[in-house]
């Protein structure tokens, strides 16, 4: 039947007869694909994705998804993940009903970006805000991979957002994705903020109770970090180094270690106006003033502190943030933020209104209102008052 399908495929035009093409392609994909035909298959799918019509494929999203998934499997099997990046991105754009819509293809796309290390390619998808989700399971994977890509791009605050969403998502049973996400969340929190915040109120009870049981080495690391002593942190890392390696988190852990210096130096800026490199080295537990100079220099270049180094005296002078909030760019930034937030607020109000009109919600509310006399509080129509 595969031969038949491929024969028929040649007869059809993917852009005009997308739906039919899709059915045939799906039938072709559902069987095993032989190695010799693999590259030809890949080409066919790529061409289809690029030329198909979006409205047609949205009529049968399942089949489209199934084709893309087998495409992804093939690409991974042949270890040419990079070939799948652009096509899957196009596929997502065509499948989405809006840019706020999360499809099942999102996590697959991010997976390919990760495997092929094309982090930047994922940016356009990642920067879209997601408000509509098909399958909760997709969200977990999407946010987890998104977190990893952001870590790779060193956008730690965005990574934190993604991982935070995984950890605090509603869940009734603990899943492995949440556990792994929590481990990375701890590490990225330490790098970015210097501490791990406690679970917010809206975290599911399952997560609050169980996540810590599976991530003890990371919690120990976090506790060590907060004390601020470099040697203790190093010891703590050494004791658990196999676990970190097994989780593929060793690179992140090393970043946590180097971030400790940064944090300690930043704390010094709160107390001192000028400080000798010797004293900085002593305060932060570095071995020589030369090392202290390197660290301070790098931090100045990265914009993490504002300071000047006087090499003649071996002194560092710390300055206040020179930002005066008076430039045109800053005003524009503030203005656009305000606009964006107003839009978000409107969205929030409209969703609130929508829920207030939702029949399921009203039924639930009315059940609690039955205590009152109907004549006095007849704002809820009777038909909603059935049990």
């Amino acid at each position: 039947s595969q031969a038949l399908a491929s024969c028929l495929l040649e007869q059809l035009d993917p852009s005009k007869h997308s739906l039919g093409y899709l059915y045939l392609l799906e039938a072709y994909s559902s069987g095993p694909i032989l190695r010799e035909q693999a590259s030809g298959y890949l080409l066919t799918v790529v061409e289809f994705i690029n030329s198909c019509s979006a409205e047609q494929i949205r009529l049968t999203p399942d089949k489209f998804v199934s084709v893309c998934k087998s495409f992804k499997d093939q690409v991974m099997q042949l270890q040419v993940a990079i070939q799948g990046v652009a096509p899957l991105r196009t596929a997502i754009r065509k499948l989405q009903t809006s840019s706020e819509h999360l499809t099942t293809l999102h996590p697959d796309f991010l997976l390919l970006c990760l495997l092929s290390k094309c982090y930047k390619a994922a940016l356009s998808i990642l920067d879209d805000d997601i408000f509509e989700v098909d399958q909760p399971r997709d969200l977990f994977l999407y946010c987890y991979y998104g977190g990893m890509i952001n870590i790779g791009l060193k956008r730690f605050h965005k990574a934190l957002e993604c991982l935070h969403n995984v950890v605090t998502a509603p869940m009734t049973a603990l899943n492995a994705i949440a556990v792994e996400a929590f481990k990375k969340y701890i590490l990225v929190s330490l790098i970015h903020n210097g501490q791990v915040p406690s679970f917010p109120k809206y975290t599911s009870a399952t997560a609050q109770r169980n996540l810590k049981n599976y991530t003890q080495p990371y919690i120990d690391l976090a506790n060590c970090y907060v004390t601020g002593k470099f040697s203790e942190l190093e010891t703590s890392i050494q004791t658990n180094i196999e676990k970190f390696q097994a989780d593929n988190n060793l690179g992140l852990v090393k970043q946590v270690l180097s971030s400790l210096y940064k944090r300690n130096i930043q704390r010094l800026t709160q107390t001192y106006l000028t400080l000798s490199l010797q004293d900085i080295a002593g305060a932060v537990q570095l071995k020589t003033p030369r090392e202290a100079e390197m660290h301070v220099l790098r931090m100045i270049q990265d914009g993490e502190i504002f300071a000047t180094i006087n090499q003649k005296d071996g002194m560092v002078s710390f300055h206040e943030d020179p930002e005066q909030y008076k430039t045109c760019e800053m005003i524009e930034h503030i203005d656009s933020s305000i606009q964006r937030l107003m839009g978000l607020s409107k969205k929030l109000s409209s969703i609130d209104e929508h829920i207030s009109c939702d029949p399921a919600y009203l039924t639930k509310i009315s059940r609690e209102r039955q205590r009152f006399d109907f004549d006095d509080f007849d704002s809820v129509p009777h038909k909603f008052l059935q049990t």
Partner: protein
Amino acid sequence: MDGDDEGVAGPMGDEAMFLNGGDDGHQQQRGIKAAMGGEQMDVEAYASLYTGRTKVVRLLFIADRFGNDGIQLEALRLAYDEIKKGEDSRLYREVAGKIACRLGPQYALDQAWADAVARRAEQRKDKLDNELNVYRTNLIKESIRMGYNDLGDFYYAHGQLGDAFKNYVRTRDYCTTSKHIIQMCLNVILVSIELGQFLHVSNYVGKAEQTPESPDPITVAKLRCAAGLAYMEAKKYKLAARKFLETGPELGNNYTEVIAPQDVATYGGLCALASFDRTELKNKVIDNINFRNFLELVPEVRELIHDFYASRYASCLEYLENLKPNLLLDIHLHDHVGALYTQIRHKAIIQYTHPFISVDLHMMAGAFKTNVSGLEKELKALITDNQIQARIDSHNKILYARHADQRNATFQRVLLTGVEFERDVRAMLLRANLLKHEYNQRAPARKA
């Protein structure tokens, strides 16, 4: 002026407490004031400030603290004499054991005396118990109350404090007048202080103060002292200071079974210095006429408070250092000396830097009897704690006051709030969507 290097550079947390008492039992006639002063501790004068069990307990405490034989033996001798006037055979044996025959045959364990006391105790206890049973059968409230009270007194005299406590508490149900209640409360407070159960002390002070008739001034003063002691044990130094400062001069020597008026001055003064701000210090301590009577008894404390207020920090700290060894021998204060001294020192530093835009660290180190690097460490701790708004110029050794730029800070906060709002709302909308899915998946199941 460069600070001497011998000065204390950090918080005074060490427990060095031994005085060089070279004299072996050599009495020196000194006034009572010297007993609490900075000179070598005169044990006899100190002990004469107190009566009852607290005298013995304090003497034993001093004896334990001193490795030096002279003072230790002096304290034990006085304790022995005091105990023999009483009926506590267990404590007697303990003291005799500690003396270990070092003071001669007169101060050895007198087994005959101990046995006689025990016999007397047996008899008295039986008598009291019988009387109590009679009263209980007769159901005369006042007699039952007195019976329990006597039992309480009996146990207290014999050092069985737990039983004493129980019996005093039992009188509560049979108290009919305010006087009875106050008597019961004072007894319970006395026992609780010795037992170290200051929660009870607070409770019963409260009960005593709530009686319908206000008690006489002496009792009021006693209750204030007890309350102050309870707060001090709980490390609530501000409240403790207030209580001690409110104690009227009527206290005099009426509460020596617990506290001496010198103690009121010392505890009150030190707690106030450690916890009050300048206004409160002036109003409640310096201008307080009643408290002045107490302060006269301990001129060092009076001087150091005035020095602190007048910003003569070097002399203030010197007085404190001189007082420290004796204060470490006080059973109530010794745990808190470290904390109080640290707080006073910090307050002094903060007050010193407050009026200036820039401060030369060398001069400041001289004023605080420390060296510049030690001072820098202390300042760093205070700045990190946000008690001082300043920055250290480590190169030139100057402290610069730092006034936050409100406008920039506001902009920063605003932008941060915006970012957080956006992040939280987006996450919330996402979660709402997920919950809707969950609900939609479950709802059909319910209808079916």
